[in-house]
């Protein structure tokens, strides 16, 4: 096997040194009846060229030539070439968790920079080194809020990513945490009235997302006021990180749970992505996940180390703030490089382009179909309601090499034929115009409706 650095003579000599007659001697501890006598039924050993061909075929059968209007939790942004150039360096790619700081300063310093930039962007005081993804980060943030408040109920906006909600439900169920869902109003934002009503004295926190699942920007200040008034914490999830370039961050939140995929991480059919949690300094000891801190060496030289490990499973075991161990470090490095490339000015410019493309598309689409939630600001997504089933429209769009918006009925049946469309800086005007054209055709049979029929 070409990865194995041993010749038959090496193996021979080593067995001899050990005093074993054959390799199977070393497997004697495994009871005989459990020793495998046959070859595993996996494909035969392939040449590298065959492996490349096999996956190339898969790639070609995976829609490699479409313009996409899908967002819904993961976004197609341009990835500067240097991201892969840099993360492919073996020194980053093939290093372990930086437990030995003297030979891990590269990883450590880069995480420290990542933490800093996340703080700058979110307006929080501390950020961790990463969580699995936005969905688990949101869930862990809620659990953290529960620990911080000592209250065991949670209010969740129905307008957060439905899969985030599902993940939270999975965790909450087994920890006996009751969840109350609050729906959205005609402007697509969480209904403040219903929110107000949702509180009990045991409500530890409110979880909202902004921009929310519809791309609508929540009124975080108002939500925070309500939550805080009831002694609950506010957790805000962000799944479209690029929004932070032009949208005021939820500074009033107590905890922010974020998906940083938009920062230079490929769509990659759903992962790996880069979750993370940011919060205020006072909450740090209940924070899950790794943290890098600055310190000095014996000669007083600046250096970085993993710190506050007493929160973590390898020290605290069942009392840890989370069971997380392996995180998404290399993906965080991608995000780090992306943030560095765009920086202070570029992130804003980039976000502006997303805004412009989306505004253009929404106005184009709005001529033929109903764009929901018009009365609140949105970032780069918008909801379009059609007479025709969006799955049917999407099928038609595929013929134009376009992947249409995400039909919402799967998660939010109350929205009927609504679909969630997304435009980023990658969305060409031609694709928008083509999609609008197809939409116009399918809606042409009847005049475009004006009235709102937003389901509650």
């Amino acid at each position: 096997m070409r990865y194995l650095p041993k010749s038959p003579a090496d193996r021979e000599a080593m067995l001899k040194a050990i005093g074993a007659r054959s390799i199977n001697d070393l497997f004697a501890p495994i009871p005989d009846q459990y020793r495998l006598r046959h070859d595993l039924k996996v494909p035969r050993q392939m040449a590298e060229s065959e492996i490349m061909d096999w996956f190339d075929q898969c790639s070609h059968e995976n829609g490699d030539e479409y313009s996409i209007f899908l967002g819904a939790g993961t976004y197609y942004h341009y990835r500067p070439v240097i991201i892969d150039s840099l993360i492919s360096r073996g020194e980053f790619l093939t290093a372990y968790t930086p437990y030995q700081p003297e030979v891990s300063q590269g990883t450590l310093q880069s995480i420290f920079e990542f933490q800093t930039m996340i703080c700058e962007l979110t307006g929080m005081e501390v950020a961790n080194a990463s969580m699995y993804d936005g969905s688990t980060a949101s869930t862990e943030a809620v659990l953290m809020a529960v620990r911080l408040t000592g209250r065991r109920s949670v209010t969740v906006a129905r307008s957060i990513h439905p899969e985030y909600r599902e993940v939270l439900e999975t965790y909450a169920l087994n920890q006996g945490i009751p969840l109350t869902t609050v729906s959205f109003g005609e402007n697509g934002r969480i209904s403040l009235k219903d929110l107000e009503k949702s509180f009990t004295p045991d409500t530890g926190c409110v979880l909202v997302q902004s921009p929310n699942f519809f791309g609508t920007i929540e009124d975080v200040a108002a939500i925070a006021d309500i939550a805080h008034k009831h002694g609950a914490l506010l957790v805000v999830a962000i799944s479209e990180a690029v929004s932070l370039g032009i949208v005021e961050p939820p500074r009033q939140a107590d905890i922010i749970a974020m998906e940083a995929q938009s920062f230079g991480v490929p769509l990659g059919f759903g992962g790996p992505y880069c979750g993370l949690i940011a919060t205020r300094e006072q909450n740090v000891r209940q924070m899950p996940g790794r943290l890098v801190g600055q310190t000095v060496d014996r000669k007083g030289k600046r250096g970085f180390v993993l710190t506050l490990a007493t929160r973590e499973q390898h020290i605290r075991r069942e009392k840890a703030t989370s069971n997380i161990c392996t995180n998404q470090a290399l993906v965080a490095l991608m995000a780090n490089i992306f943030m560095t490339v765009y920086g202070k000015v570029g992130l804003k410019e980039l976000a502006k382009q997303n805004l412009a493309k989306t505004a253009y598309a929404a106005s184009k689409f709005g001529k033929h179909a109903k764009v929901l939630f018009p009365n609140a600001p949105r970032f780069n997504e918008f909801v379009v309601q059609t007479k025709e089933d969006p799955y049917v429209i999407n099928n038609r769009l595929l013929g134009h090499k376009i992947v249409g918006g995400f039909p919402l009925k799967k998660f939010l049946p109350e929205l009927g034929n609504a679909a969630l469309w997304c435009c980023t800086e990658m969305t060409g005007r031609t694709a928008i115009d083509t999609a609008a054209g197809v939409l116009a055709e399918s809606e042409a049979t009847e005049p475009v409706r004006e009235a709102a029929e937003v389901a509650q």
Partner: protein
Amino acid sequence: MTPMTRKATRHISQNEGLIFEKSSPGKAAFKLAPLDVPEVDTAKLLGSSERKDLGNMPEVSEIEIIRHFTRLSTWNYAIDLGMYPLGSCTMKYNPRVNEAVTRLPGLANGHPYQPEKISQGALRIIKTLSECLTEITGMDAITLQPAAGAHGELTGLLLVRGYLQSKGNPRKKILIPDSAHGTNPATAATVGYAVENLKSNSAGMVDIPSLAAQMNEDVAALMLTNPNTLGVFEQEIHKIAELMHAKGGLLYMDGANMNALVGKARPGDFGVDVMHLNLHKTFSTPHGGGGPGSGPVAVKKFLEPFLPKPVIVTKADGTLGFDYNRPLSVGRVRAFYGNFGMFTRALAYILANGPDGLRQTTEDAVLNANYIRKALEGVYDLPYSTPSMHEVVFSDKLQAKQGVKTGDIAKRLIDYGFHPYTVSFPLIVHGALMIEPTESESKEELDLFIEAMRSIAQEVQEEPQTVLEAPHNTRVSRLDEVAAARKPVLRWKPAAQ
């Protein structure tokens, strides 16, 4: 050449400040394409939600970024540079073809919500990997959704809970041997179970009488690592499984150490009901400085209905698709379908190996660990004489007499050009040196490691101070971790602030 300079030498290495220290207004590494739609008035669109300022985000040019991260990278040790014998971590070679296939455009740019009919490539990868992994583990079904080992544990215990719940009682406790990894108890707590410790016997294995005594109808499952964290195969595995099953409990296996078993034995054959795998260990996906990983959970048939949704299915027309209609499912543990990019890598690894390669890999991993054990036995204390599989755990008992601890020896290894082994784990060995070479080390590299370890043992006797103050050859000396935790500085701030 002395043993100390045989493997490594000192060389000039670039310094580099924090990126913020290089920032200056007007520098930029980005350039956007001209907008092909009308510009918008952001104030009008966003109102009070408009952000005005991005604070201290850096402004630097592309060359500075290349240099920044290139310089930083050179401060890291890595598998690509040499042996990385972290016990329990399986730091094996990360093949480059894995990276290449993952970056193919249809896979890298595939959106998880794109229609299934244009996702057959990705679905085939998920299907093929699932089949390979169930075959390798000898289990019946699998989910690839969990993002890492601990996440797999969580999923596995959710399955246990879901299943027991469906039988009427989720039960209260999880039994966990004292040698277990910290994620095991932490996970049990996350799923709402109490943790009960299980003592190991003098051979470092599960103490059967204790297990028999502690097992009862309150116990949902035993979380067993096999081979366990001492690198020892639980030889009475069958009895363990029987004891669990007899009282209606399940046997969960932490598969972190599957590198000792692939192609040689299958957990499904020896009574395991549910287990997780670490694709970032056994299946060669890179650790990347701490992640990402992937922790698929494989189960016996009776647990299949409880798997997280969606599950992959072959549809009537022969194409692949996702099934969300799973009434007994424990739910979802992560958005989308898991760390897909790790699936492509792991599958590429399996295809590169085939059945013969996988078996040879396991054999070499076990051979390497035993070779080290043999060469260092006596030089370092071996607390358990039970045969080792893929890793070996020594203790610092002999060196502690000179005041030198496992952590000091570890630091001194750095001077010799090696990454340290795992320090102070498993907890049942006081002052543990946990060494897992993996199959990726040549005899030459192992011999250098052995020589280094022997030389350090000698230094401990002759000049313990050298070891206590190590490392000496790195760009920073030992870092003050206590100060870091006492007054945490977790982000850079501008001098003025």
